[in-house]
C-alpha cells in the first residue's frame, strides 16, 4: 500500500511545526552549508562575469605601458610603437592623468581625476556615451577647451540640470561639456592602478589640453591593443625590447590587464576552494545534525511507528515518512541558506572589490544540495524506523 505523496508531506510539516526549536537547532548546519555554497557560486559567477566584461571592453590582446616617472613616455614614443609594430598593433592610445578640484557654478563636488585622452581612447575601452560626442582628432590638434564627463561626475556637478553644453571648471581652467558617458561601471573591470578605471567620477579632456602641445608631450600611459591574443606574446616581446632600450629615460612598467584579472581570479579561486571545503564540512555536520535528530525521533516515536504498522503502513511507508521528514527540515534549512548566501554575496560585493552575482542556478543548486542532504542523512534513521518491531514498540509504554 502506498501512502499518497501529499499526505506524507502534510505529516512531516505537522511534525516539525510542533517541534520548531528542535528543528531550528538541527538545521543550522544545513543553513550555513547551503549559504556557503551559494556564496561560492555567486563569487564564481561574478568573477566570470567580470572576466567577460573585461574581455568585451578591453580585448584579450591589450597591453598598458605605465611610466613610473614623468617623461618616460611621450607622444613620440606612442607614434614609434605604432610604426615599429604595424603588423601586430591594431590600435594604440596615449593617456595623461591629473587631479584637480572641479566645479560648476554653485556646485563644487571636490577633487576629480582628469584623464587626458586622444580620439582613440573611447573605442579602445569600449566606452559608451549617454549623450553628445567624445574627444575628436580636431580637439587634440587644436587643444579645444572641451570635456566629456563620466556619469557620476556629471550627476554630482549638475544634479538637476542637463549636463551637455554646461561649463566645468577644473583647477584654474574651464571646459565646455560636449559629451556625457553612460554608466560604464558594470562593463569595465575595476583595475585601479593599472590604468583602467571602472569609476565614472572622471573628466575626460583632449590630452593636449592638459599636458601641452607639440609632438612629444608627456604621457602617463600608452595602451596598445594587438590584433588578437595570439599576437600578444610576440607583441609583448617587442614592446619589452623597446622599453628596455629606453630604460635610461625612466622606468616603464608593462601591464597586461587580462593577466592582472586572471591573477585576481586565481586568488578568488583559492578563496572559493577554501569556502567550498568549509561548505562541505558544514553540510556533513548539518546532515549529521539532522540524522542525530531523526535518530532521536525514531527512539521517541517507537510506539507511533508500531501503531502505524498496526494500522497497515508498510516498511516502505515508514521509510517514506521518515525520509520526507528529514527532507522537509533539510529543505527548510536550504531555503534559509539560499537567502543567507545571497545576502552574504551582496555584502561581499559591497565591502570588497569582488564582483558577485547571485543567480537562479545558484539557488537551484542550493535547493538540490539540501534535498540531497535530507535524503542521504534521513535514510539511515528511516531504515531504523522501518526495522522497529510493532509488537515490541506497542507494548513499551
Amino acid at each position, binding site marked *: 500500500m502506498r501512502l499518497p505523496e501529499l499526505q506524507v508531506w502534510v505529516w512531516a510539516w505537522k511534525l516539525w511545526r510542533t517541534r520548531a526549536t528542535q528543528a531550528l537547532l538541527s538545521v543550522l548546519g544545513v543553513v550555513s552549508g547551503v549559504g556557503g555554497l551559494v556564496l561560492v557560486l555567486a563569487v564564481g559567477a561574478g568573477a566570470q562575469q567580470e572576466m567577460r566584461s573585461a574581455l568585451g571592453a578591453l580585448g584579450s590582446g591589450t597591453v598598458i605601458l605605465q611610466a613610473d616617472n614623468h617623461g618616460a613616455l611621450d607622444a613620440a614614443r606612442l607614434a614609434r610603437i605604432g610604426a615599429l609594430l604595424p603588423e601586430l598593433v591594431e590600435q594604440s592610445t596615449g593617456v595623461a592623468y591629473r587631479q584637480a578640484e572641479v566645479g560648476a557654478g554653485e556646485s563644487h563636488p571636490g577633487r576629480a581625476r582628469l584623464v587626458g585622452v586622444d580620439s582613440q581612447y573611447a573605442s579602445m575601452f569600449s566606452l559608451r556615451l549617454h549623450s553628445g560626442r567624445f574627444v575628436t582628432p580636431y580637439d587634440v590638434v587644436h587643444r579645444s577647451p572641451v570635456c566629456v564627463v563620466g556619469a557620476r561626475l556629471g550627476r554630482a556637478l549638475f544634479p538637476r540640470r542637463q549636463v551637455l553644453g554646461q561649463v566645468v571648471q577644473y583647477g584654474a581652467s574651464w571646459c565646455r561639456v560636449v559629451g556625457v558617458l553612460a554608466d560604464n561601471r558594470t562593463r569595465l573591470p575595476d583595475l585601479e592602478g593599472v590604468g583602467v578605471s571602472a569609476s565614472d567620477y572622471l573628466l575626460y579632456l583632449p590630452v593636449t589640453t592638459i599636458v601641452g602641445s607639440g609632438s612629444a608631450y608627456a604621457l602617463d600611459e600608452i595602451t596598445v591593443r594587438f590584433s588578437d591574443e595570439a599576437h600578444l606574446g610576440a607583441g609583448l616581446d617587442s614592446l619589452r625590447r623597446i622599453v628596455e632600450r629606453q630604460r635610461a629615460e625612466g622606468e616603464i612598467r608593462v601591464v597586461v590587464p587580462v593577466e592582472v584579472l586572471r591573477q585576481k581570479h586565481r586568488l578568488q579561486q583559492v578563496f572559493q576552494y577554501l569556502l567550498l571545503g568549509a561548505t562541505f564540512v558544514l553540510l556533513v555536520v548539518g546532515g549529521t545534525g539532522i540524522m542525530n535528530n531523526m535518530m532521536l525521533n525514531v527512539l521517541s516515536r517507537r510506539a507511533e511507528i508500531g501503531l502505524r504498522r498496526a494500522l497497515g*503502513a508498510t516498511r516502505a511507508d515508514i521509510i517514506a515518512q521518515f525520509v520526507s521528514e528529514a527532507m522537509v527540515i533539510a529543505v527548510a534549512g536550504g531555503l534559509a541558506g539560499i537567502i543567507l548566501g545571497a545576502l552574504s554575496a551582496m555584502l561581499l560585493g559591497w565591502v570588497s572589490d569582488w564582483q558577485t552575482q547571485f543567480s537562479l542556478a545558484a539557488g537551484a543548486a542550493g535547493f538540490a544540495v539540501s534535498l540531497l542532504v535530507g535524503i542521504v542523512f534521513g535514510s539511515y534513521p528511516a531504515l531504523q524506523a522501518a526495522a522497529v518491531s510493532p509488537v515490541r514498540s506497542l507494548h513499551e509504554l
Partner: protein
Amino acid sequence: MNDPRAAAPAHAQGDPAQEVVLRCEGLGRAYEDGDRRVRVLEGVELALAPGEKIAVVGASGSGKSTLLNLLGGLDRPSAGRVLLCGADLATLPERKLCELRNRQLGFVYQFHHLLPEFDARENVAMPLLIRGTARREALARAAQVLERVGLAQRLDHRPSQLSGGERQRVAIARALVGEPACVLMDEPTGNLDPASAAQVLELIDELGALRAAFVVVTHDPAIAARMHRTLELREGRLEPRA
C-alpha cells in the same frame, strides 16, 4: 442492561454454515530463551463469526497479548495458522498483509497511542489516509465516526486536550473508521478511571450492532460479562470459560 449473549450471532450458537471472519488452527507460539524453548501458545483453535464479540481472559503472562499480535498479523506463529477473511496471514507477502490489516482489522490498545501532533479527526482518519483515501473524504468519514462515539464537539482537539475516556473513544473510532471485519482490543479500559471505563463499556455495547467481530483481551470481569463468549488462556491453550 440486556444480556448480550442473547444477541449472539448464529455461529456463536453453533451454526457451522455461518461464515467465519477470523480462524485459528493449531496456533502455537514459542520463544527461545537461551537453551530453553518457552511455549506461550499451543494448539489454539478459534473461529469468530461476523458480529461476534468474545473476551479472552487469563492470568498475567498467560499469552493474551501474544495471541492478539498473532491474530493481527503483527507476529508470526511458530505452529498453525491464522486465517483472516480466508487469507493465511503467515503466507501473505508484506504488502498484502499490510493491506489486509488496514482494511479488515482495527486495533484498540490499553494506551490509546494517539499521535500528539494531530487532532482527533486526523488521528481517526489515519487508517484511511494510509489506505490512500483522499484527505478530504478521509476527514469527513472520521468526523462521522467521531460523532457516532459521542465526540462531535471534539473533532479539532488534540489528544492533550482530551480526557482519558475521550482519548480511548477516539482510539475506538480510529479502529472502526475503516469498517473492518474484526476489531482487536487489548485491555481497552485498563488505563481508565471507573467513570471513563463505564463510558467505554457502554460504547462497546452500542457497537454490538456493527457487523464487525470483536476480540477483547481483558482482566475486567465487567467487560467479559458483556461479550457473547468468554475464553480463557490457560497453559497456552484457549478454552471456554465456564
